[in-house]
């Protein structure tokens, strides 16, 4: 095994694929792929995403020290590949999904249970070589926990609140959670299958609906991937408007999460307060850009609507007022010991696990992992903006809430700067019809959203893979809840706020 080899040095043993932008893609033979997996056992390369095609497996990697990003691909005509999950547990669910969707067998994958495939699609390997499958839905074998006085609590897929569907299987000893196991995939919509063959504009609409709360982040990642593939130069003002929308999305989600976390600790007034603040943002979105959640506003080539002069004033006014109200609510949180008592020390996630799984967003940042795509790899206009990434070490519900509080403040300052510095000019460039491959990573409110795309010469999507940050956060929720009481689960779950739809795809 090699010593301190960098990611790019290592991958250059493979064949570089032409026309993949802005980062290189290398095709590795079986031996080199296997050596890469072995190298990953000792290197700190991050997995950004792993996906497949009918006879090829891809993984997007980042060399954590150098920050270099690259895609490693391995053609596998025999439908099997050396599993990454042997050395990286964060890849286990990704590889279970890959086997379900494309029919590629990850050799060495310990968990042989299907993941997204519940046996209800009427077809197996829908994205590989599909085969009709009739028969009964799979009976899922949950992991067991045995001991005197242990009992099980099954929850879901339909939950008690207004939230997305998923199944949680608790093993509890009295009130204490001994093991939580998640079963997801209920909202799998077959997005990758739908994207294949779609014109770019239509695909953008679909990718913008992978996870509705992150529609700006997804639309932005898709647009940037397409623009990278085609070499499209986006006008300067469009970059700034995109950042404005992205920060509005971050604000709206964070304030609502803060309220909802407190609500799950039976402190409902914070939810009311934050719900009002969120409403102010959504109304400003509607007034400035014509959609409360900003769906379909970021498009390949630029943005769909410009910000009018009145919109600029309305936003500037909104922000002053917003900051005051927000700070008051945070003071309320800070000065309510009964609430702090619920959030402090609850749902602890050790930093080592956050690093091992490459968790991003507030989940990572509350456990010492301060990765943010706006800083690295970075994209315009953030290189011209002044902002800091809050990082805490406590790893509990309180820390995840406080990271959000600081990010709200940072976003408010960012919006201030954006409004002051935004250049004038056109807001969209034409998108030519030609082929290419591109990838983009952007920072959504939950963490890094990645989109990879291959376009045909006719300008249609051949394949597209959107990756949600929740893939690397969901498994950590299972760890964070262990040893807590069942009644704290809603609180801990909300502090993670993982996306079901983004994960299930």
């Amino acid at each position, binding site marked *: 095994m090699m010593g301190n080899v960098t990611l790019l040095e290592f991958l250059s043993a493979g064949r570089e694929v032409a026309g993949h932008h802005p980062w290189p893609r290398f095709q590795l033979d079986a031996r080199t792929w296997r050596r890469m997996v072995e190298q990953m056992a000792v290197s700190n390369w991050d997995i950004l995403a792993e996906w497949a095609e009918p006879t090829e497996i891809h993984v997007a990697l980042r060399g954590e020290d150098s920050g270099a990003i690259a895609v490693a691909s391995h053609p596998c005509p025999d439908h099997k590949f050396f599993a990454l999950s042997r050395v990286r547990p964060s890849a286990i669910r990704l590889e279970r999904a890959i086997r379900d969707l494309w029919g590629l067998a990850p050799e060495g994958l310990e968990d042989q249970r299907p993941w997204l495939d*519940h046996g*209800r*699609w*009427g*077809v197996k390997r*829908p994205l590989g070589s*599909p085969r009709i499958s009739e028969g009964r*839905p799979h009976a899922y074998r949950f992991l067991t926990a045995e001991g005197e006085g242990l009992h099980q609590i099954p929850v879901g*897929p*339909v939950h*008690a*609140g*207004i*939230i*997305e*569907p998923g199944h949680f299987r608790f093993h509890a000893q009295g009130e204490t959670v001994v093991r939580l196991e998640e079963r997801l*995939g*209920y*909202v*799998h*919509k*077959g*997005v990758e*299958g*739908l994207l294949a063959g779609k014109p770019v504009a*239509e695909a953008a*609409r*679909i990718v913008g*609906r*992978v*996870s*509705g*709360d992150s*529609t700006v982040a997804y639309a932005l990642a898709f647009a940037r991937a397409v623009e990278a593939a085609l070499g499209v130069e986006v006008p300067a003002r469009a970059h700034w408007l995109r950042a404005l929308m992205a920060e509005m999305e971050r604000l709206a989600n964070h304030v*609502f999460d803060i309220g909802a976390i407190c609500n799950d600790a039976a402190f409902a*007034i914070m939810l*009311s*307060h934050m*719900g*009002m603040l*969120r*409403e102010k943002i*959504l109304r400003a979105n*509607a007034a400035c850009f014509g959609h*409360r*959640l900003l*769906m379909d506003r970021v498009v390949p080539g630029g943005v769909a609507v410009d910000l009018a002069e009145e919109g600029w004033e309305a936003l500037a006014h909104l922000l002053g007022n917003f900051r005051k109200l927000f700070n*008051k609510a945070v*003071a*309320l949180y800070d*000065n*309510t010991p009964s609430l702090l008592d619920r959030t402090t020390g609850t749902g602890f996630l050790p930093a080592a696990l956050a690093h091992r799984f490459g968790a991003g967003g507030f989940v990572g940042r509350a456990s010492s992992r301060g990765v943010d795509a706006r800083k690295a790899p970075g994209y315009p206009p953030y290189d011209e903006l002044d902002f800091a990434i809050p990082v805490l070490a406590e790893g509990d519900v309180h820390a995840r809430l406080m990271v959000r509080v600081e990010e709200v403040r940072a976003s408010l300052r960012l919006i201030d700067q954006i409004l002051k510095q935004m250049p004038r000019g056109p807001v969209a460039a034409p998108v030519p019809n030609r082929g290419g491959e591109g990838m983009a990573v952007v920072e959504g409110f939950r963490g890094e959203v990645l989109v990879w795309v291959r376009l045909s010469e006719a300008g249609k999507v051949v394949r597209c893979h959107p990756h949600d940050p929740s893939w690397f956060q969901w498994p950590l929720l299972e760890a964070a809840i262990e040893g807590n009481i069942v009644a704290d689960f809603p609180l801990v779950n909300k502090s993670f706020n993982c*996306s*079901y*739809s983004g994960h299930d795809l």
Partner: protein
Amino acid sequence: MIFPPISHLIARHLLKGPHTITGGGEPDAEALRQLAENLGVAARHRLGRSLSIREVDAGSCNGCELEIHAVNNPVYDLERFGIRFVASPRHADVLLVTGPVTWNMAEALRRTYDATPGPKWVVALGDCAKDGGCFAGSYAVAGGVHEVVPVDLHIPGCPPSPLQILGGLTALLASVAE
């Protein structure tokens, strides 16, 4: 500090009144027409002006859920119309269903419907809930809500705005209370 911050907040609300918009509960005319077509006259009067809703995400992108949350915020305050969300289908008069129904959720939706006592109504919310929206045609998607359970009212939009949702639900309330 003598007064904890919560007392300021409460004082402010007592002095200045709530954030709730006035109105906003006018039944949507199109929704009323659709309901008149779909609803039988039976059992309408049983509920009075009160409805309990169980929300079911049957495959949504979660955008629709965000706006359903919004109708519960102090600005729209759905509860002032006697409409509230409940935790169990057994307590519900109405199922509010979002999303293209995925095959992985179809059975859960059907079982939730079966667990809801009659008389019951189903409201399909969002463009996806009508016919699958931009997810229609996928191997993983059954289609609109009506493919799995009978639908009484559809509230369009992607996602529908809180006012559209209020209009639709109050129309339902008006027609069942008739």
